[in-house]
């Protein structure tokens, strides 16, 4: 014990120790917020996922069981108590993953030209375009989603217009489909794709693009060989920013997908609500977090690799 303090005394002069202490004090508010708002709840959730579910929601404290985790992927047969794959859950996982990936790809496909367009405007007009892109954030997500509902429902603007013109005889079912969820999510998350893309395209040295043209690269080749590799960090950032919230999206799938087309967010909500299965809800939440974490690890690795290249 004494030798240990001696060693630290030798290594750090008093003022350095004070500095270190100060740093801890300064970061205390941030640390406590992180503890209270992020790590604490996650730990509680982790704990709950291993407990027995309460009859009217909640958990039976300190009664442990793996049921919550087992029920994420498996379900017990009502009659003979054998375990089978939880088809409903797997379908929802698969739908969430599929819709999130599709949302990300669609956002990338729409976001790239948009960001390119903005970044190539004259300097003073660029800010106006960026400003316009962020306008949807001003209205509440719920309101915006209801607005989409209004546009695409059977008696909505699109169907009514098409009926009136006589292109269709009966309304096209658009609301409460996977397509509606996809459309809604792309609409909601597009700005999250455009902004990081815009930032990296704006930084792009267009003289390199000219150098590409000069060296016989056609427009397509310049895009593939020069522009895309150089804005890769922005593309990855945008994809992560869209993919993560898409995976846990709740409002959009709920309002545009109806009850049948659930996504992970809705599944979790239902376990804490009507399902009264808090351990299962906790386990699914943590599964979702793990999915997100893998996505992030993938991102960090890619980002550091391309960062090293740019030196």
């Amino acid at each position, binding site marked *: 014990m004494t030798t240990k303090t001696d060693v630290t005394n030798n290594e750090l002069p008093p003022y350095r120790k004070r500095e270190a202490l100060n740093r801890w004090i300064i970061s205390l508010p941030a640390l406590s917020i992180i503890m209270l708002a992020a790590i604490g709840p996650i730990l509680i959730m982790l704990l709950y996922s291993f407990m027995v579910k309460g009859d009217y929601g909640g958990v039976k404290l300190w009664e442990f069981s793996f049921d919550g985790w087992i029920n994420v992927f498996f379900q017990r047969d009502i009659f003979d108590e054998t375990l089978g794959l939880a088809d409903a859950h797997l379908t929802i996982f698969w739908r969430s993953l599929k819709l999130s990936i599709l949302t990300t790809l669609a956002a990338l496909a729409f976001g790239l030209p948009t960001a390119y367009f903005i970044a190539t405007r004259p300097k003073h007009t660029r800010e106006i375009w960026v400003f316009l892109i962020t306008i949807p954030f001003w209205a509440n997500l719920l309101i915006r989603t209801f607005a989409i509902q209004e546009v695409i429902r059977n008696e909505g603007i699109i169907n009514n217009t098409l009926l009136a013109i006589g292109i269709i005889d009966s309304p096209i079912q658009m609301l409460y489909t996977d397509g509606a969820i996809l459309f809604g999510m792309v609409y909601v998350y597009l700005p999250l794709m455009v902004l990081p893309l815009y930032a990296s395209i704006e930084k792009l040295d267009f003289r390199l693009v000219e150098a590409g*043209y000069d*060296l*016989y690269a056609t427009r397509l080749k310049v895009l593939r060989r020069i522009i895309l*590799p150089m804005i890769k960090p922005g593309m990855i950032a945008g994809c992560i920013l869209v993919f993560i919230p898409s995976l846990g999206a709740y409002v959009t799938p709920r309002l545009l997908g109806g009850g049948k087309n659930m996504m992970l967010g809705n599944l979790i909500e239902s376990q804490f609500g009507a399902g009264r299965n808090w351990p299962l809800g906790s386990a699914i939440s943590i599964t979702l977090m793990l999915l997100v974490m893998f996505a992030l690890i993938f991102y960090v690795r890619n980002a550091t690799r391309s960062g090293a290249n740019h030196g």
Partner: protein
Amino acid sequence: MQSPSIAVEAKNITKVFGHGKQHFRALNDVSVSIRENEFFTLLGPSGCGKTTLLRMFAGFEHPTQGAILLHGKDIAHLPPFQRPINTVFQNYALFPHMTVAKNIAFGLEMLGKPKAEIEETVDRMLDLVQMQAMRDRVTSQISGGQQQRVALARALAPSPKVLLLDEPLSALDYKLRKEMQIELKRLQHETGITFIFVTHDQEEALTMSDRIAVMSGGRILQVGSPHDIYERPAERFVADFIGETNFLEGKVSVLEEGDRLSVTLDAGTEGKQIQVAFDPQNSPETVQAGQRITLTVRPEHAQVFPIGSTSDDPIISGKLENIVYFGTDTHYHVKLSDNSIFIVRQQNSQIRGDVLVQNEMVNIHFSMDSARTLWD
């Protein structure tokens, strides 16, 4: 119609940027022909339109009026990637996500050359610019001079008909710049490619070029060999921009028979006439007595003598204000009667027999032929 020895030609090029009140005429009726295998330099002060003209050859800029011809064919409609013209950019514009070798290979890959040929050419280029050791480095990890070489190799690799170089040496320090000047000359000689080189450094232009075009305010003022440009400037701006020179204002007294002109200077001669050589090619069609004229005399073409010296050549006199010793030569600053300073530069290799005293009156001699006549 076209002479086959012309590589690139600009015909009456005008370029206007912007519209309405904000419009700016960057090039104004520029015509120039650049010969095959020539080291041609565009020289001029900042903002005179050198880069704009170069970018027009490359295809990044389109003329508002006029035509660009490559080997006699109009290439105005061709995008940059279809022109056999490559550029060494001022900032090099190397691709940061590729290695040195990959950068050099880029143009060849885009042209769809076979792999073996690409490798062979890249190898040859790396040897040519002495960068073999750096071939697998990322371009951000090499020095400015090395980047310059890679940019050069990258532009030369696809064997363009014409190589455009936009102030490629301006970012290098003095010593490296001198080295690269020699190297560029060597490369141009070895490859036989037409070089169009942009600089605002007159010394660089004089030492490297076969011919120079002096530009100012969106116009080409004079095209000629370095010797022509230096010794026989066509305009006051050219004389002033290239090297040091003295201007003597005056008016024509008599147009003599043959190739002489009698001029009465405003200062330095106390109203006496001096005779200078007359170059009809660089003069207005009619020259009348009383017409304003400017003489320009390079400092090294004049000599100072103590007052009272005599010569058949023109003599002007003034007060010796200053003697500045430069090692290889000495500069004499002589103030004329209109308070303008006439600079004389004399080599120190000849030991002077006489002694010049500061603040005394002195005579300046220069030969009739060394005074160049300029008209407004």
